[in-house]
């Protein structure tokens, strides 16, 4: 595959995520989807770049409540995600997980997590198991900048480092924890430097460039598979939307939204592809095709049955 084809593929997947989030925004506005929904608009390059470097037949990602993008990048069908958010029986978790807590292990997507930081020790534990079965599996724990201040993340990193476990810690540094800027919550805002404390490599990555993300993750995966242990990758990015749908973002400094709209990954990737000879109509066609695909998925999900209530007590225990 040429570079250009690869980048085209990245763009397609990033567009798919963005279109899904836009569709979800619509469905939330009309209260067809209810409850808290955390969108990842603007952070798509991380998911697409990382998943391109993983072997999802065996590797696994452990994201947060802001997980739709990871799920799509892992290959979870948008229909199954939309159906989940709509409480349909076809939802990937049968409506039990909702927007913030669904799981799709068949796709290497080992579940969202709505407790900040809790996924880090879980991913580390998965990596631990991988060191015993010769599978070469690698686990990716992904969480936000704010999550780095949670005790569980600290414990996971030390544990992973001391046992050289095949886990990659990805920090999606979008600058905010909910409504509070990370710069007000840490003294050293080069978050990757925390890696040193644990004796593992840490690096900053342009989280708006899927190619850069992919390269960094590929290197980390290769290291992990060789038994060299964990890495902390701080991906610099931004969310183009609120923390949750409905967040009025009064905490954003004047002009910030306009500024980040210019550097967001899809805009950048399209510019790059134009530089490589693709045309605006081609890009628009791609956009349209993906949008249609998502529209169809939504229509199908809306047509599906609600998850049955008569099985709601099942699967509590084996």
């Amino acid at each position: 595959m040429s570079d250009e084809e690869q980048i085209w593929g990245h763009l397609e997947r990033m567009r798919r995520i963005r279109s899904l989030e836009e569709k979800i925004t619509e469905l939330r506005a009309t209260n067809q989807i209810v409850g808290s929904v955390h969108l990842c608009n603007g952070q798509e390059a991380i998911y697409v770049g990382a998943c391109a470097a993983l072997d999802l037949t065996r590797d696994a990602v452990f994201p947060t409540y802001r997980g739709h993008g990871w799920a799509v990048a892992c290959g979870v069908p948008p229909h199954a995600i939309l159906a989940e958010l709509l409480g349909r029986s076809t939802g990937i978790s049968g409506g039990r997980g909702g927007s913030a807590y669904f799981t799709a292990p068949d796709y290497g997507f080992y579940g969202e997590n709505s407790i900040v930081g809790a996924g880090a020790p879980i991913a580390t534990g998965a990596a631990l198991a991988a060191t015993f079965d010769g599978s070469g599996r690698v686990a990716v724990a992904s969480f936000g900048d704010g999550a780095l201040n949670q005790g569980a993340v600290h414990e996971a990193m030390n544990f992973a480092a001391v046992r050289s476990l095949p886990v990659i810690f990805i920090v999606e540094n979008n600058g905010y924890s909910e409504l509070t800027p990370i710069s007000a919550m840490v003294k050293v805002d080069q978050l990757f430097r925390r890696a040193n404390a644990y004796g593992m490599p840490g690096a900053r990555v342009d989280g708006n460039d899927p190619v850069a993300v992919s390269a960094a993750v590929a290197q980390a995966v290769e290291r992990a598979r060789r038994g060299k242990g964990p890495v902390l990758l701080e991906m610099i990015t931004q969310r183009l939307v609120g923390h949750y749908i409905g967040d009025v973002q009064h905490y954003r400094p004047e002009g910030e939204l306009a500024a980040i709209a210019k550097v967001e990954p899809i805009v950048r990737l399209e510019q790059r592809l134009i530089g490589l000879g693709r045309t605006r109509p081609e890009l628009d066609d791609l956009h349209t095709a993906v949008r249609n695909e998502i529209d169809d998925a939504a229509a199908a999900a809306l047509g599906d049955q609600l998850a049955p209530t008569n099985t709601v007590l099942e699967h509590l225990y084996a």
Partner: protein
Amino acid sequence: MPDTVIKRASYAEAINAALGRALRERSEVLVFGEDVALPGGVFGVTKGLQRQFGDRVFDMPISESAILGGAVGAGLFGARSVVEIMWADFSLVALDQLVNQAANVRYISRGMLASPITVRTQQGNAPGACAQHSQSLEALFAHIPGLQVCMPTTPQDAYDLLLTSIWSDDPTIVIENRTLYHGDKVDITTGGPVQPIDGAQVRRQGSDITLVTWGSTQFAALDAASVVAREGIDVEVIDMRWIRPLDHETVLASVERTGRLAIAHEAHTTGGVGAEIAARVAEHGLRLTSPIVRIGTPDVRIPAAPHLAQAVIPSAARIADAIRRACVLNASFAGGTVASHG
């Protein structure tokens, strides 16, 4: 005597008013938590407080151990912290600081030190919320001697119980409910004397059965009472308000009159606070006309889809059914013995 003022306030505004008063009247009060200061809280409950009171209201990292432990430590140095744990579910990452730390301070020091902290949190399901944002955990806190726990459900109680908690010299967990924050505004009395812990409140008087409840289930309970009233069953509804200490005297007095007891709460039935109330009544040996009934969430995790959650969380209909079962099916046993039901 302070001047009392009547003002219209939602549940959230009542909490905000209580926090404002505490900050104004007691210089040792600090208010902190995640997103509470500059953003004014994820539910807008603490809006404007930092503007008014400056750095005594501040934002915290996502570090619940630091929030709760920070409150305990600040208390040892004379501050009176009112901290927010955004969801009761999140307290589980740092429960040590409440159970192993705050609850012990006064007892071990024989009163030389205290832990005059107030933990504001909120809990329960709301449409679409996932299993990690839907639990009702009061039973966990209520099992711990040294802690106090209340669950206000009206704007007036939201104001009063919070002030009582802040004024209290012992660690108190105020469990709010996010589905109530932005409900109707009602007249509340503010500025009056801060009350001591004053137990349960009878929300509806009745003579056939005592229905004990708390938290947002109260509204389902009152609805259920209205429904069965049309069928001739007269329900007394008691809002416990305080879960620890537990005002069982009010419950016993009511059950003594009605001879029947139903308990409804959103928490899981198994091991819920309803069990403690049932046990106290059973221990007391009151003559009951029919067996005690509990209405809570069955053994399940809380599913996110609203219709699935509704299938497991106590509703007015399920409460009404339980009341009917207690009052109608067991009417034949109304001779003072405890009857078996099947």
